[in-house]
């Protein structure tokens, strides 16, 4: 049983409410931060903890905080990115639904560290009921003096506002989120200037993921150095993984980043193996936009080392033989799944969610979807596979925001690792409609687990 920091108390009855949460030791970090520490010390603790952004990019949170500009007389803002829309990722939903006060607590401490008197939670529009949960939690915190004016007599004022999105994936990108929060069309801004200099209403802004801000609570409670001891290398602390797909026990798991991928999939503590005695074919380890990995490269790196569930190990080998930790949406595909169909589904998603601002993404995502649809429905040509590769290459890196990259990577990785399956679809259009390509050589040749 690995150490739990965020979800330890998530299943205590009534933890959603302030009284129970407080009795279980909640809001200690607010007391400690506001009474004993100054903002610089908190930023320093977060830096020491080595906490990396949990939204996908993995940028060190303390570093991001220290970049915020502090001009005289201009208010600063903290924005919590709860627009969790990546297919396969549902960890923030779990956290906010079961233990909302943890997020509120993290927000108060972070707001104090950054000097944000008005803090926003930008929440995904589809999470309608969670808005109610959060607003109830905020009202309770107000009533008990942890929000509002002069919190705990420290002279620090803070209000938290919950803003619902309207259901666009692109608003999870921080500058698009800021535009949307301002009431505009959710188009990503062109950087620079970065939000740390000019964010919401041109004021310095920090945008952080829900899990990142919640992780500030244990960091303050136990100290940054203690926190950094959990995990390995630069992957410190615990990470929420939302596992789904062909596994026995889908759900949200908190791991301390020392376990191997194999253990995560097959042990009963976590995913509990693959149902019906099927074998592992592929896996997307970090949410839909990170590259897909075949089983043999998932369990072991190209160098033959065991692959672990942490930032460094998952990205070992770059995009050629590795993937990314991403946002922790762990999608498992068994031998019955068709990679072409799967890639088509993702391409359709990115085509639908592209904001249409810059040309490569607007036009390229639709083009890729149409070609993939042809291949999937048996109308593909061999040249289409190379064409797909060329299109993704011309989208990647040439767009305003990372959505272009996110649309290009899954297609690139699918072709890189599963090209023979694409070719099989082209060569056997009729057969491809009736059955799946199966496992081929992707399974780990050494380890064949039995369910």
């Amino acid at each position, binding site marked *: 049983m690995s150490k739990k920091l965020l979800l330890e108390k998530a299943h205590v009855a009534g933890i959603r409410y302030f009284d129970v949460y407080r009795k279980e030791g909640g809001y200690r970090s607010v007391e400690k931060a506001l009474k004993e520490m100054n903002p610089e010390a908190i930023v320093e603790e977060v830096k020491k903890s080595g906490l990396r952004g949990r939204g996908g990019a993995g940028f060190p949170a303390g570093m991001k905080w220290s970049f915020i500009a502090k001009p005289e007389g201009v208010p600063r803002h903290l924005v919590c990115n709860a627009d969790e829309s990546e297919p396969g990722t549902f960890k923030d939903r779990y956290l906010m639904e079961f233990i909302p006060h943890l997020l509120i607590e993290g927000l108060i401490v972070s707001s104090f560290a950054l000097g944000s008197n008005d803090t926003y939670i930008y929440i995904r529009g589809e999470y309608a009921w969670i808005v109610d949960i959060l607003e109830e939690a905020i009202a309770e915190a107000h009533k008990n003096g942890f929000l509002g004016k002069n919190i705990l007599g420290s002279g620090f004022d803070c209000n938290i506002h919950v803003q619902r999105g309207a259901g666009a994936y692109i608003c999870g990108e921080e500058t698009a989120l800021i535009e949307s929060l301002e009431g505009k069309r959710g188009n990503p801004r062109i950087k620079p200037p970065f939000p740390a200099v000019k964010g919401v209403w041109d004021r310095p802004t920090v945008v952080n993921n829900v899990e990142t801000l919640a992780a500030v609570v244990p960091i303050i409670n136990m100290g940054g150095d203690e926190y950094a001891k959990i995990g390995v290398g630069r992957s410190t602390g615990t990470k929420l993984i939302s596992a789904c797909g062909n596994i026995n026990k889908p759900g949200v798991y908190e791991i301390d980043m020392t376990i191997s991928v194999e253990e995560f999939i097959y042990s009963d503590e976590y995913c509990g193996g693959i149902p019906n005695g099927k074998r592992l074919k592929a896996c997307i380890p970090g949410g839909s936009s990170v590259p897909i990995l075949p089983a043999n490269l998932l369990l072991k790196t190209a160098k033959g080392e065991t692959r672990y569930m942490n930032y460094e190990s998952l990205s070992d080998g770059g995009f050629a033989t590795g993937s990314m930790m991403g946002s922790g949406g762990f999608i498992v595909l068994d031998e019955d799944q068709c990679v072409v169909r799967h890639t088509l589904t993702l391409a359709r998603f990115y085509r639908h969610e592209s*904001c*249409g*601002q810059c*040309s*490569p993404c*607007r*036009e390229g*995502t639709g083009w890729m979807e149409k070609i993939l649809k042809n291949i999937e429905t048996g109308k593909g040509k061999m040249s289409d596979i190379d064409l797909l590769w060329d299109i993704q290459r*011309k989208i990647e890196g*040439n767009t305003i925001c990372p959505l272009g990259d996110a649309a290009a990577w899954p297609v690139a990785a699918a072709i890189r690792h599963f090209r023979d399956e694409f070719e099989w679809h082209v060569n056997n259009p009729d057969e491809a409609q009736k059955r799946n390509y199966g496992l081929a050589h992707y399974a780990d040749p050494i380890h064949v687990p039995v369910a």
Partner: protein
Amino acid sequence: MSEQQLFKVTIDNITIEVPAGTTILNAARKIGGDVAPPAMCYYSKLEGSGGKCRTCLVEVSKGSEKDPRPMPKLVASCRTTIMDGMEVKNITSEKVLDARAGVVEFLLINHPLDCPICDQAGECHLQDLSYEHGSESTRYEFQRRTFKKHDLGPHIQLHMTRCILCYRCVFTADQLTQKREHGVLDRGDHAEIATFIEKSLDNDFIGNVIDVCPVGALTDKTFRFKNRVWFLKPMDAHRDCPTCSGRVTLWNRGDEVYRVTARKDEWGEIEDTPEGKPGWICNTCRFEKKKTSDWIIEGPRNINRHSVIAQGHYAGKIGTNKPTETFAAVNDGRKPHLLMDIHSVSQVNKPEVKLSLIDGPAHSDAFKKNND
């Protein structure tokens, strides 16, 4: 002004000094010629424009004198400001040309390519761009995108299929008029320019969206299907207009005024008036004053010699500009390598024979006579 700091920047081996805060694109435009990246969405007169079309991507091979690291990705030159000692590669970078060819392909896959019936043909930036950077055939085998038609009122015709979503018209309406009636609806590849809901665009200055549109998406209804731009003679003219500067270009054929536009500079942008303000013109000048007697004609408008509009209109140098030649400077002083000098072998291409001076169709006699 004297205190303004000057930064040295090298673009395609040509070094110039520009004031701090200039963008790479504007610095490159100061050099001119092929060194200036193409820009479909950036418009220097409109605040906030640029960064969207990605045709102006350039490679920054050296960040600055202080921090010489190259930038990891290609950057949009229209929105990236220069640093002291920055080195930029535009036409000398394979990566840039490859990415630009990709962008042009993306812009064209859903473009109807109906140039033969498009009023913008001959002055279309997308035509220029695809001529320079596009491929001769398409790899797109699917049906092109279509839209439901929106009527924007009596003056402006919207062809959404031709639109490249540069947002220039949105910025123009935002910054020039009191109330913007149109904008971008929807998202992704079904995003479109439209009014909400079915309003017509009605404002004294709204006609300027036609001038800023880089393609044929917004065209002049009063000029629709009347003539091709290369058959018309552009003439500078002005009138005493109570609402705008009244400085325009008339597009004549014979004595007849076919259309009126604002004056555009070599980058296709609206020229400044002598007072230094952008020379936007009002709807009255643009749509209603279509008689020669309404205007005081100043003389022929200078048109780039390479433009199809310049062909055959004037003899000699009147009314044409020679584009800046940068080849030698970019390539260490080397001259362009020509397979052969066409004048040395051709019977017809004699530079001393002025086609425009020949009465009637050109005949071999004219050239033979000259050879004597």
